[in-house]
């Protein structure tokens, strides 16, 4: 099939076939990272701007490695402040980037929807590397790749996503992606962290983690941001860990072949106990490795062809 998207902004705008093609391509490209010379010439002469408006270590590194393994030229810009603080509008920023004629702009931004706005303003491909609480499509794709590698499929699996659903772009993208690929998604967490209308995305919600994980094939734990405690979402790390975290004891009720995932970075001892994060069910580091492959696949599919 042809891949004709200009941008990768969210999972909602990708078809099941397009997701399948990205994952197949990522499977093929994964091998490059295990070579002695970890580089192919595919994107020679392509300029890829990494525009990170919010701090990120792993996503940014993963994108940079992906671009470099395909021989793309990468430029990094970071800005800790919003453009409006500098007196420059987003449109000004877009026009300035466009004037340098990059082939792709990889944007991480604190504010939801910013990649969509940028994509409307520039001719280059825009890849969303996470926007506010909205979407993190490459994370969802690497999660799907990891599950498919381990389970051979996504169709028909029971996937539990646990924790702060309301503030998680990873959860949103994964709910959309998993359900699109035929998995059943259940959400679990304190009611203060389950957003209104989430069932319209095709997931069910409950508040008891032990009950929720009983028939799960996959348990994905989300990071708890400790500063959220100030907005009355939960009383303390201790109580959160006890009622909503994943401990070895909670896990005892899960299936024998369950996989534990986490988009990182982990709060050990809050949402996930250390022995679970490092335990035999955990595929957390495979997720990281597959992140490079998925991002290479996206860069190849967006920039590899004639434009």
């Amino acid at each position, binding site marked *: 099939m042809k891949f004709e998207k200009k941008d990768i902004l969210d999972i*909602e705008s990708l078809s099941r076939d397009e997701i399948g093609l990205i994952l197949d391509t990522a499977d093929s490209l994964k091998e490059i990272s295990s070579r002695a010379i970890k580089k192919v010439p595919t994107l020679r002469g392509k300029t890829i701007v990494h525009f990170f408006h919010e701090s990120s270590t792993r996503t940014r590194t993963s994108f940079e490695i992906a671009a470099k393994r395909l021989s793309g030229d990468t430029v990094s810009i970071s800005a800790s402040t*919003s*453009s*409006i603080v500098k*007196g420059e*509008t*987003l*449109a*000004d920023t877009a026009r300035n980037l466009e004037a340098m004629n990059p082939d792709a702009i990889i944007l991480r*931004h*604190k*504010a*939801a*929807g*910013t990649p*969509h*706005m940028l994509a409307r303003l520039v001719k280059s491909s825009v890849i969303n590397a996470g*926007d*506010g*609480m*909205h*979407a993190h499509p490459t994370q969802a794709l690497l999660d799907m790749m990891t599950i498919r590698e381990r389970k051979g499929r996504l169709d028909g699996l029971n996937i539990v996503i646990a924790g702060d659903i309301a503030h998680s*772009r990873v959860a*949103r993208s994964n709910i959309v992606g998993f359900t699109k690929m035929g998995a059943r998604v259940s959400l679990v967490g304190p009611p203060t962290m389950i*957003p*209104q*209308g*989430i069932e*319209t*995305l095709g997931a069910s919600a409950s508040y008891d983690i032990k009950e929720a994980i009983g028939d799960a094939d996959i348990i994905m734990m989300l990071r708890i941001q400790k500063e959220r405690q100030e*907005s009355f979402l939960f009383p303390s790390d201790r109580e959160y860990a006890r009622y909503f975290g994943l401990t070895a004891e909670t896990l005892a009720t899960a299936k024998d072949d369950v996989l534990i995932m986490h988009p990182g970075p982990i709060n050990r001892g809050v949402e996930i106990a250390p022995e679970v994060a490092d335990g035999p069910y955990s595929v957390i580091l495979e997720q990281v490795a597959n992140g490079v492959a998925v991002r290479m696949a996206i860069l190849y599919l967006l920039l590899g062809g004639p434009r």
Partner: protein
Amino acid sequence: MKRTVIQGGHVVDPETGIDGLFDIVIEDGKILSVGDSKPGTGDWKLETIDATDKVVTPGLIDMHTHLREPGHEYKETIQTGCLAAVHGGFTTICCMPNTQPVNDNQSVTDYILKKARAAGSVRVYPIGAVSQGLKGKNLAEYGEMKAAGVVALSDDGNPVMNAQLMRRAMEYAKAFELLIISHCEDRDLTSNGVMNEGVTATRLGLAGIPNSSESVMVARDIALCELTGAPVHIAHVSTEDSVRIIRNAKERGLPVTAETAPHYFSLTEEAVLNYDTNAKVHPPLRTAKDREAIRQGLADGAIDIIASDHAPHSSVEKEVEFEAAANGLIGMETSLPLSLKLLEKGFLSLTDLVLKMSVNPARVLRLDHIGLKPGNPADLTVIDLEKRFTINADTFRSKSRNTPFNGWQVKGKAVITMVGGKVVFNDY
């Protein structure tokens, strides 16, 4: 001496109960008669305006606008705001006090009125601040502002969170017969919300503002109205709950009035899909259910008034990240055609529309002249109900372009705006 006759138009004035084909005779800027009377003969120059197939109404009043002057002249000036008003068919507008400096004292009121006189088209009535600097701490000087010309009081976008301050404001305002206009919003419930809370916000990953953020304050202010006996006017009602609470208060005979804006009966939260910052507004656009309740509230009288909440912003505030974008949209040049859609949909009659857009605001604000009574200044609007056009922000007289209605096909617009017998806008 000069006499003007507006001939053959369908005159609609709920204040005098006139509804039919009549001629309006104007002399010296005042209405002489509305009827079949001939202009007569005498020592005057006669000017005739043919209003055949047109509707003639008392001048439209927009009691909720932001003219941005003094302080934010790059968004709008009193002059451009007045031009936008007359193009939209308005003869009278009220401007909110959130300027820089804030209109919380007579010198700012004087300044606004001086600028408005210089603009020389529409009548401008300033609204003064409830609290000094809109800070919600101390009462502003209502007596002096009233003397200078304010017609009402509001902290508008900076809602009065302190209930005790609101109580005292309502009590104190009684002494000067000034109406308190309340922007009902509980800031704690709004928190960091940027659009309506619900399905669309969840999908877009934007923080939501619940309906209760508005309705709890509507309920509070109605309770304070009952406590103090002072009238209260609820600005830009956006939710079903608010409409119900207001309707209930009216049934109980409380002096509560309410307005809504065209975007609340025209749009839903889905206008925000695609992160269109021009659809970012406070209160936020709500669901289809709320929109239906607003239309119903207009139909049954729970909502008295349509006001635009004209809020100009430049690209500096709007061509930015959705979360960082300013709230508000401009409305004076789209308010009438959007409201006319409610006639087509059967929610309002033409008489209702004139009530909501002219007579009721004049009554609520206790203006001196209401409707087309002989002796009143000849403020009137001639409307062509059949005129079809496409809303094009580039043709707006406002300095700003922040409208979510660009490109909408609409029917009906003001073709003549007359203030004090003078034609200030003519697109016949």
